[in-house]
C-alpha cells in the first residue's frame, strides 16, 4: 500500500460533523491554526532529521529509534520536516480544512 492510499483511507474518519465545526470555529476565534502530522512508518528509516530540526519539538524519538508525535498542537505548519524527510514519510495537513460543508447548510 502506498502512503497516498493510506492517507486517503485514514482521512475518512468517523468525526461527527457538528463536533468538527464546533472545534473549527473555536480555533478560528482563538486565531490559531492546527495541523495534523502523519508519519508513514513503513518508509521511515529513523534518521532523526524531523526530531532534531522541528522548531517546536513536535516529534520525539522512541526507544526503537522511530519518531513519535508528542506535541501535535504545537505544530506551526512550517513543513520543514515534510520538505527535509529523505524518505517521503511525513505529511503535514491542516486539521480543520475548509472543504467540509456544515450539516445545517442543507446542501
Amino acid at each position, binding site marked *: 500500500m*502506498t*502512503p*497516498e492510499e493510506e*492517507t*486517503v483511507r485514514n*482521512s475518512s474518519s468517523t468525526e461527527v460533523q457538528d463536533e468538527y465545526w464546533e472545534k473549527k470555529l473555536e480555533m478560528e476565534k482563538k486565531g490559531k491554526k492546527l495541523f495534523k502530522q502523519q508519519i508513514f512508518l*513503513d*518508509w*521511515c*528509516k*529513523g*534518521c*532523526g*532529521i524531523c526530531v*532534531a*530540526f522541528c522548531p517546536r519539538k513536535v516529534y520525539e524519538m522512541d526507544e526503537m529509534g522511530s519518531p513519535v508525535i508528542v506535541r501535535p498542537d504545537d505544530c506551526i505548519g512550517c*513543513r520543514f520536516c*515534510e*520538505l*527535509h*524527510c*529523505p*524518505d*517521503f*514519510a511525513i*505529511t*503535514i*495537513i*491542516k486539521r480543520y*480544512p475548509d*472543504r467540509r460543508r456544515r450539516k445545517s447548510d442543507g446542501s
Partner: protein
Amino acid sequence: MIAEITRIRHKYLRHDKKFPHVWCPGCGIGIVLGSLIRAIDGLGLAKNDLVLASGIGCSGRLPAYVDFNTLHTTHGRALTFSTGIKLANPSLNVLTVMGDGDATAIGGNHFIHAARRNLNLTAIIINNQIYGMTGGQYSPTTPYGSNSTTSPYGHIEHAFSIADLAVTSGASYVARGTVYHVPALDKLISRGIEKEGFSVIEIMTNCHTQYGRRNEMSDPVTMMKWFKDHAVTTTRAKKMSPEELKGKFSIGVLTDIDKPSYTEEYQKIRDRAKGREVKS
C-alpha cells in the same frame, strides 16, 4: 486530504519499485529527489518531454524511482549520453544527475567540454565530498585535511570547486545549493531547467556513512547543521572579507549569462544546409 507537497511527490514516484529507497537513513539524495520533483512539477513539464540520465554511484539510483524517461549509463559518461539524446531530439528536456566522482573525476573531461559547448542540458551534481558507494575513498572534492579510507592520516590534496570549474569552462548558469536550504534549492533547480544553455546545479549533500563517520559528523543532523553554519549566500559573501570566508562556501546563483547554445547554433547550420536561409 493529502497535502500539496505529498500529492506532487506521489504523482511522480514509482510505487512498484522497492520503497523505501536504497539510500542510507538520512541521505541527502532523497531530499534532492523531492526537490527535483517539486521543481519539475512547478514548471508544468509533461512526463514524456523529460529525460533523466544518471551515471554510476549512489546518485545513479535516483532515476529508478521516478516516472520519466530514464537512463542509467556507464561511469562518468552520463553527460555524453545526454548529449546524444539532446542532439537526436532537441525538443526534449534532458536532465543529468551525477555524483561528484562521476562528474569531476571519471567524467571530468566530458563535463568541461559539455560546459564549453554550451549544450542545452541541465547537470545536477550531487556533491557528497567522497566516493560513498565504493567504500569511502577520497574524491576530487574531499576537503584538505579530512580523513577517508584512502587517507587515514588526513587528506594532503586540495579540493576543487565544481561550481567554479563550471563557471570558467563556460556554462551559462551555475548555482550551488545544499540539502539544508531546500526551498532555495527548488528555485535553483527550476531556474536551471528553464535556462537555455548548459546549466550546472551543485548540491552539497551529506554522506554521514562514509565521510561524516570518519570526520566527527557521524549522523545526518550534525552534517546538516554543518551546512547551515558554513553556507553563505552569494550576496552576503560579497560583503565579507577573505578571512571571514575561509572554510565557508557560497550558495545561490553564481553565474547567469545569456549566450547562444549549441542546439540553437546547430539548428541554424541545418537550416542553411537545407537552403532554408539565404546566405549572407
